[in-house]
């Protein structure tokens, strides 16, 4: 089950927030090899973790740590697309509206699980937490800079439109695509249906080679 950490309830979740920053470092820096300027070793917290930020986290009760998380920032405040990646938006300007928030650091630690169904359920819970927060707070769109693989995946759940052409400027050669996804109750229902049918959905993804049978990294 996910947790929603808002500026209002942040004080009640200090341990979860600590665990989340450490997990983000593990995934983004150690596993994905990102260079994030200005962060402490072992702890990913940057200028976009602000007083306005909302976090959605998923904690594994057995591991007693955050295993997946994402952060949401209002686009009416400085955010990643406005401050760092505005030039990526070559098809339409990045949205800056009260009903559009930016999703970033969409992180799932895929090295922790051998079971693709369990991993899929964690991903579903994270997505549902994000969508539910949006619906409850009048947010109708999420903007993000997506990895090209996530862009195709996002399409299965949200009506997603690119803000710019794919940009391949990192050494690993993968593309990043700025995009905006529409959030509504139908999205939420689709996510909950996928979670309820997790075994079947994962089986289909495995059959079509969309995901590996074993998720643990070699």
């Amino acid at each position, binding site marked *: 089950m996910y947790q929603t950490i808002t500026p209002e309830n942040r004080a009640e979740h200090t341990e979860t927030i600590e665990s989340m920053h450490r997990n983000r470092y593990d995934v983004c820096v150690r596993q994905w090899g990102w260079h994030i300027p200005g962060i402490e070793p072992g702890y990913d917290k940057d200028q976009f973790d602000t007083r306005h930020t909302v976090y959605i986290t998923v904690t594994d009760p057995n591991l007693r740590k955050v295993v997946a998380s994402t952060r949401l920032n209002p686009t009416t405040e400085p955010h990643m697309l406005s401050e760092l990646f505005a030039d990526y938006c070559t098809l339409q*300007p990045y949205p800056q509206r009260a009903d559009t928030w930016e999703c970033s650091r969409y992180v799932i630690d895929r090295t922790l699980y051998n079971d693709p169904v369990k991993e899929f359920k964690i991903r579903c819970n994270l997505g549902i937490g994000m969508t539910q927060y949006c619906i409850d707070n009048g947010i109708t769109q999420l903007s993000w800079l997506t990895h090209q693989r996530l862009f*195709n995946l996002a*399409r299965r759940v949200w009506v997603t439109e690119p803000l710019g052409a794919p940009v391949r400027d990192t050494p690993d*050669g993968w593309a990043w695509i700025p995009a905006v996804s529409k959030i509504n109750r139908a999205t939420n229902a689709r996510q909950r249906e996928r979670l309820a049918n997790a075994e079947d959905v994962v*089986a289909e993804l495995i059959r079509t*080679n969309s*995901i*590996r*049978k074993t998720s643990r990294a070699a």
Partner: protein
Amino acid sequence: MISKNSERVLGAIRGIQNAETSGDVQRIFSDFVEFFGFTHIHLGQLVNPANVPQSDILVVSTWPDELLTRRSERYDLMHDPVALGALRSKRPFRWQKAMEWATRRGQKVVDQARDYGIKDGYIFPVHSIDSVSGAVSLGGDKLDLSRSDLGEVELVSLAAYAQLENLLGPFPYQRLVDLSVREAEVIQFAAAGKTNRDIAAILNIQPDTVNKTILRAAAKLGTLNRAHTVATAIAKNMIFA
């Protein structure tokens, strides 16, 4: 800076996402790519054609029927350097790039398309979380795409692929084949080289039961013999490789 083609690109993507028939998707997509000089579209899931008939997978093509038939009959996809390159590529590439790793048979496959007037082209791999699930191949005669053109065609290609998969699927090969736990277990040991007698001893069942279990799994998978059953189960990720 906003691209001069932005309205054209977004219009095509929105049209494709709202299209209710595959014909509409194909029409919008064809109109869009024609602007960039592409005259032929061939898109589909990249799966082993010796294991899954073309009629069971997503294939949408404007290539000549005769060329498609010839490719299908001779399993040309398995030799096609463009398709093989797409399986391991993170980015679109021009067909001619694939000649670097083409075998002699692969070169003939490419030459065959040229015989039908499809002389040049690009392929756009479609990635899922862990692999390439398919590709969009666009052909033409004299192509001259800038880097930004290529990115924009890639986006519309991805949209067309996703919507066609959505409208035309699920495909027979995607349907679940439910191997029972026992069937998967037996095939797992067969894949490790164990005989029926070995497997029977390991699972504490009769060798005849092992044999019947394998035959039952083969019937579900539509396979012809023990090796084919094991290979298919591995290919479909039903057991550990």
